[in-house]
């Protein structure tokens, strides 16, 4: 790679860079050779970085005004909404920012699934990503508890109670998590502490995630290895910077629409009722981004097995690089996988939908079928597909499909029709 030859122009620059090679790093980041055929699905990495920084900055500001105490938390949130200058703006950005963060991360994950970005040599990037995703869920869940509304309290009660499913030590663990015999002030203060800590852990992991990415370089829609730098690549700056910037601005328009015009649509009305341990809400539902896993949890009749199924649904992703036996990365050249991919997308959306509905009758049946299919996809379909599927011949370089007319898809379609 080019950064080894990098030498700052000025004497001072050289002196500094010999002692701390920050300028080499900056040079590496600007020159970083990126495949030139990256489509807009690849812009979500940058968007996610933006989301993380936004959450940290707004979160720090909120923490200056928020009071982590069971008797005062709800009131302090109202204080932020009413009396803190632009407090309503900061809080709505933070609350909707969580949803935007998950929207972007789901697109990011499903992009990886479609183009096989998790495959060798990018397994470590993928596993780091799964850890980040798990931490995001933990941070989001604990953040939702902080306003101390009805959904906060009862959501916390339901989720922490899951640990009681563990044989022998379960009950003890739950008491330990709560810091008492029910969700109460000690629970709130520790959730606040952890909610404050986790984003910085995520930030550290994001650095590793990007570091690991910069070793093999980006995957691309064609999914082939490319020479770097070459005719197939462009330097990160200005090409990718401006493209990411453009996509980020589009994303911000959607974000702004939620913040300014329907700031509460993604939340639950019950969370504007102060927590009351004596009154259980009619339906306890988590935030939308956790619904598919909630559906999996509830579709298993046994409590312990339900928890195991829910955790496996996430952890199974960590071993995905070894479950997918196909050597071809991009779904563009995998006609069968492409169909199963979209079925999986539909399956997850269905799980999300039934997760929001009461677990009874037809909803429960659908949830069970969808859960079974989810595991079937990863444990049976993917491994078998690698051996059985007849893939489309892949091009030798990115330039080939580009010169053939439209990038990627047109070329693939053309080849596809030849096979048929």
């Amino acid at each position: 790679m080019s950064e080894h030859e990098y030498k700052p122009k000025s004497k001072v620059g050289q002196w500094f860079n010999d002692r701390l090679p920050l300028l080499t790093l900056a040079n590496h980041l600007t020159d970083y050779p990126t495949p030139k055929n990256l489509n807009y699905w690849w812009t979500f990495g940058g968007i996610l970085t933006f989301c993380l920084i936004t959450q940290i900055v707004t979160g720090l500001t909120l923490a200056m005004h928020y009071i982590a105490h069971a008797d005062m938390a709800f009131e302090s949130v109202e204080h932020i909404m009413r009396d803190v200058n632009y407090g309503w703006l900061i809080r709505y950005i933070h609350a909707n920012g969580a949803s935007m963060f998950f929207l972007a991360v789901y697109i990011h994950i499903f992009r990886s699934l479609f183009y096989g970005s998790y495959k060798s040599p990018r397994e470590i990037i993928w596993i780091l990503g799964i850890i980040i995703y798990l931490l995001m869920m933990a941070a989001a869940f604990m953040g939702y508890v902080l306003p101390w509304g009805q959904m906060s309290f009862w959501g916390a009660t339901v989720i922490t109670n899951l640990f009681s499913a563990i044989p022998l030590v379960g009950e003890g663990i739950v008491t330990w998590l709560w810091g008492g015999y029910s969700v109460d002030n000690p629970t709130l203060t520790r959730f606040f502490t952890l909610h404050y800590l986790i984003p910085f852990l995520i930030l550290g992991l994001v650095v590793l995630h990007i570091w690991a990415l910069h070793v093999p370089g980006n995957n691309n829609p064609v999914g082939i290895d490319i020479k770097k730098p070459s005719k197939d690549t462009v330097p990160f700056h200005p090409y990718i910077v401006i493209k990411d910037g453009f996509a980020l601005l589009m994303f911000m328009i959607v974000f702004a629409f939620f913040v300014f015009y329907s700031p509460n649509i993604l939340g639950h009305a019950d969370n504007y009722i102060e927590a009351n341990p004596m009154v259980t809400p009619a339906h306890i539902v988590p935030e939308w981004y956790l619904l598919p896993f909630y559906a999996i949890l509830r579709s298993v009749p046994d409590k312990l097995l339900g928890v195991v199924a829910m955790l496996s649904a996430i952890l199974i992703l960590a071993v995905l690089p070894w479950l997918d036996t196909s050597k071809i990365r991009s779904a563009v050249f995998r006609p069968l996988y492409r169909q199963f991919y979209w079925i999986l997308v539909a399956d997850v959306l269905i799980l999300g939908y039934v997760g929001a509905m009461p677990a009874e009758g037809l909803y429960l049946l659908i949830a069970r079928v969808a859960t079974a299919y989810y595991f079937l996809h990863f444990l049976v379909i993917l491994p078998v597909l690698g051996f059985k599927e007849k893939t489309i011949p892949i091009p030798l370089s990115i330039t080939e499909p580009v010169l053939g007319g439209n990038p990627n898809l047109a070329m693939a379609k053309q080849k596809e029709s030849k096979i048929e």
Partner: protein
Amino acid sequence: MKTFIKFCSILGFILCIFSHSIAADKVDYLKTDWSFKGLFGKFDRGSLQRGYQVYTEVCAACHSMKYLSYRNLSEKGGPEFSVEQAKAIAASFEVVDGPNADGEMFTRPAKLSDKFVMPYENEKAAQAANGGAYPPDMSVLVKARGGGVDYIYSLLQGYETAPAGMILDEGVHYNKYMYGNKIKMSAPLSDGIIEYRDGTTASVEQMSKDVTTFLMWAAEPHLEARHRMGFKAIIYLIILTTLVYFSMKKIWSRVESEV
């Protein structure tokens, strides 16, 4: 690019359906034209002032509004009473203050900085006075109910005689829009129960609309500022996005790839 936009809009659509299906039970609420909805939505000052009158003369007998202060009544984007009017309103309430230099608690007329005086000392007292049901605090009531303003507006007009065969306990009333149709609050409004200072006819429909508007403001006091800023922010973002789009086109024209 096109498929990307298409996919995003589909995704947004699904997201909206999701949130709607979660938020609203399938009830047809009474509809009215709320002036505060939409991109430029603003409160109707007259309606807010009348709404405050309904709240203070009817609702406040049982419902507290503990997160609001009297100063809010004269703040921009609210009912916008003059500061003098708000002071006079505050002064008509007594608050307990103290202890004074002798260590005694004392009562004094409320000031602008005081929170709205609560009708009951505490939640238990409120329950005891209302047959065991706690009249919920109204500060964020609109946001705390699935149907929002439409729900409150409908509920106030939803009192009917119970259908035949439905047995109601003592002190329980039938309401078409209430969850489970049983409500402890008796119909709070009736035609002419109050006399509007601005001469508007105090019909149940009119009072429901006014008080709901007032409750919306109470729950979202910065709604007008939010709408104003939102419009500016989105216009700014659209212009910037357009500029960046053309810069991107220009930069990428150096390589023979499409963006």
